């Protein structure tokens, strides 16, 4: 852990600007380019979209999915998946609707309860993945079904009443009567805060450890990382971000068991679109957010283009496949050699320096692979497909 805390010497401002320019035209900037193209296309179809108040409204609409994408980014970059995010959103929306009701004084305690519930879901996901060694795909899929089943049991699958307007203000309201933009929705403010926190967090030693863990869990474990805690915290982060998104959606949309449906896949698509490598170890949180914006811009573009409802879903799917395929091919070229199938090292497997170490390493079939040592820059990364 101590090794990761040393930051490289900061380059000068001019160099950074030049580097940023290079990024935009390089494959890494593909998602930003895509976003720009989509926004221009929308504006061509509908010039009023470029007006400041419309743009702010657009950001407000994207805020929940962008926040979910931020949470998903940490899980994916740490080498796992969280499929339970959408159902966490749904569960939180239903909790808010049922527990707050028309009593605004309950808003704060219920919000605290929702955050605690979100953290608990993430904790359970993380602990099961870390200690029981169940693939996160299965754990979070199970969590998704459990939560959706709970919601079904509670509501019977139908909408209940909306909670008090005061609580919904976060998702619906904002700072009014501003010049130029008219209204600054709270959702936009919350997105900015969450994004700033995420950038700050990913620059911190702990945030870098997550990437190190996703890149190569064995080296991360050998360098002294408490892998179970790092992994678990990414799940807690994702569930908490789903909770924040749920709070915004209650305000924006209202209570319905269909709110949040499909968010886990939208978030994963956004993250992959942002060039984050499935399997972990590589990615940029800002690009993941840009991926969320690009996806939502795509949906908006289809609305504006008047694509008939009957094959709208198909059009969306095709474009997403093309975009993700493009992002994946451009990224593959830049990826370095890495472990073929690094099995996550649990806490009890934490390496003990000493004479026994060599024997243990041989005993463990997974770590017997020479490919674990990334010193040979073999271009074997294509075998780790899926991205």
């Amino acid at each position, binding site marked *: 852990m101590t090794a990761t805390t040393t930051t490289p010497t900061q380059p000068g401002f001019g160099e950074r600007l030049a580097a940023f320019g290079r990024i935009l035209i390089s494959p890494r900037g593909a998602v930003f380019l895509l976003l720009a193209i989509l926004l221009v296309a929308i504006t061509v179809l509908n010039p009023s979209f470029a007006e400041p108040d419309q743009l702010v409204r657009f950001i407000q609409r994207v805020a929940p999915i962008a926040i979910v994408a931020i949470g998903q980014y940490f899980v994916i970059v740490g080498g796992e998946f969280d499929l339970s995010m959408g159902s966490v959103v749904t569960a939180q929306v239903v909790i808010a609707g049922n527990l707050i009701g028309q009593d605004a004084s309950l808003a704060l305690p219920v919000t605290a309860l929702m955050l605690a519930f979100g953290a608990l879901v993430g904790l359970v996901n993380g602990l099961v993945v870390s200690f029981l060694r169940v693939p996160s795909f299965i754990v979070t899929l199970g969590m998704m079904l459990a939560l959706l089943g709970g919601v079904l049991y509670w509501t*019977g699958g139908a909408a209940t009443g909306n909670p008090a307007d005061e609580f919904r203000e976060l998702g619906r309201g904002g700072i009014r009567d501003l010049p130029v933009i008219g209204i600054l929705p709270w959702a936009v403010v919350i997105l900015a805060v969450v994004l700033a926190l995420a950038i700050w967090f990913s620059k911190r030693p702990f945030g870098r450890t997550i990437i190190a863990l996703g890149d190569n869990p064995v080296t991360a474990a050998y360098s002294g990382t408490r892998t179970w805690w790092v992994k678990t915290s990414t799940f807690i982060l994702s569930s908490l971000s789903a909770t924040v998104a749920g709070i915004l959606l209650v305000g924006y*949309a209202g209570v319905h068991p*269909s709110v949040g449906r499909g968010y886990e896949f939208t978030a994963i698509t956004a993250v992959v679109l942002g060039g984050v490598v499935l399997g972990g170890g590589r990615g940029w949180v800002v690009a993941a957010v840009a991926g969320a914006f690009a996806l939502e811009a795509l949906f908006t573009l289809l*609305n504006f283009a008047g694509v008939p409802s009957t094959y709208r879903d198909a059009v*969306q799917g095709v474009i997403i496949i093309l975009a993700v395929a493009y992002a994946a091919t451009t990224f593959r070229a830049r990826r370095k050699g890495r472990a073929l199938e690094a099995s996550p090292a649990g806490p009890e497997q934490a390496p003990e320096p000493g004479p026994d170490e060599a024997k243990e390493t041989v005993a463990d079939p997974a770590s017997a692979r020479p490919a674990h040592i990334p010193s040979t820059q073999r271009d074997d990364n294509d075998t780790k497909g899926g991205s």
Partner: protein
Amino acid sequence: MRRRFTVASAMVGALALIALAGCTTDPNVSAPSEEAAETEEAVEWFDQELFDKQDAERDVVPEGPEGQPWLQTINAELVDTAQYASQGAKKACFANASISNPWRQTGWITMNEQLKVLQEAGAISEMETRDAQDSDDTQIADIDYFINEGNCDVFIISPNSTAAMTPAVERACDTGKPVIVFDRGVETDCPVTFIHPIGGFAWGIDTAEFLIDELEEGDKVVALRILPGVDVLEQRWAAAEKLFDEAGIEAVDYFTGADPAEIKKIISDELAKGDVQGVWMDAGDGAVAAIEAFEDAGADYPVMTGEDEMSFLRKWKETGLTGLAPVYSNFQWRTPLLAAQMIFAGQQVPKEWVLPQSPITAEEVDQYLALNEGMPDGHYAKFGGEDLPGYPQVWEDRIIP
């Protein structure tokens, strides 16, 4: 998103070209394909004969006891049920499609209250219910279970879908015991009675005529539809679309899955494109989100048709918009059990029991709001349970039995 991916992977090859044409070129190019798709849909679901029948039934004065619409009938052709006449309390077996929307939940509560009355009267001993949770397969299994092991005296079936449920219903008929079908239909006339309100075309005609009256030619209507492929919903849109088309109203339709977030995005985008004068819904679920989208955008309220769900009626009153609440008579959930009682008493019942179905207009909305004052937002104003013993507490608590 899951569905998007599934649909996408199935249709990638066939639709790639259309897809790209639809979004990379200017809208003029995509317009013809849109029209083509709409025509195909209309051909598939529009049924002129049924349209005319339901159109006529809207103007028929229902026969039957005053103030009890769940026992009234329209153009009834009575059938003899003497062969089923029998003494004693009977066991009813109810294969329910689902209770996954507020309309079905309200009806389900009402049905259970009606059951209590009939149990006290000694007509029904018990009702065993299986909930298919919106699955055809589950409901077929449910019906077969009832046939083989249910020890049922009467089958009550609320089909999940029309074609898929037909063979199972026929198997139930083959037992020789009375079968009662209500809400969605099946493609067989073997049930003793098929209970339903006038239907989807009547809904479409009521709503479209209202919007056409209130709007000008060339005005724009956004149609929010729950999902494709369900006949009662498709018929609503098929009728409305035809009338909008004839009246020169520009109508665009979207599938929302009743997701309020989706509804809000759709309306926001439509408002960003240009003015929207009307909103048409094939079910009221999510109506509030649609109205809020106009508020958030600072646009004038649209002329709107929702449903008799309390959330819509309240929002309608609160905003003072020009509205109409079409009704898919929720009180029909009482009728099957009452029909069972009549059948065992040997009384004649209509072969096709068409119940009245009339929208709540602006003049009536205050009356229905007052009648249902303490009811939750998901409650339906024309639930027709005011004379049942649990009223109003059971519906106010809205605890799903």
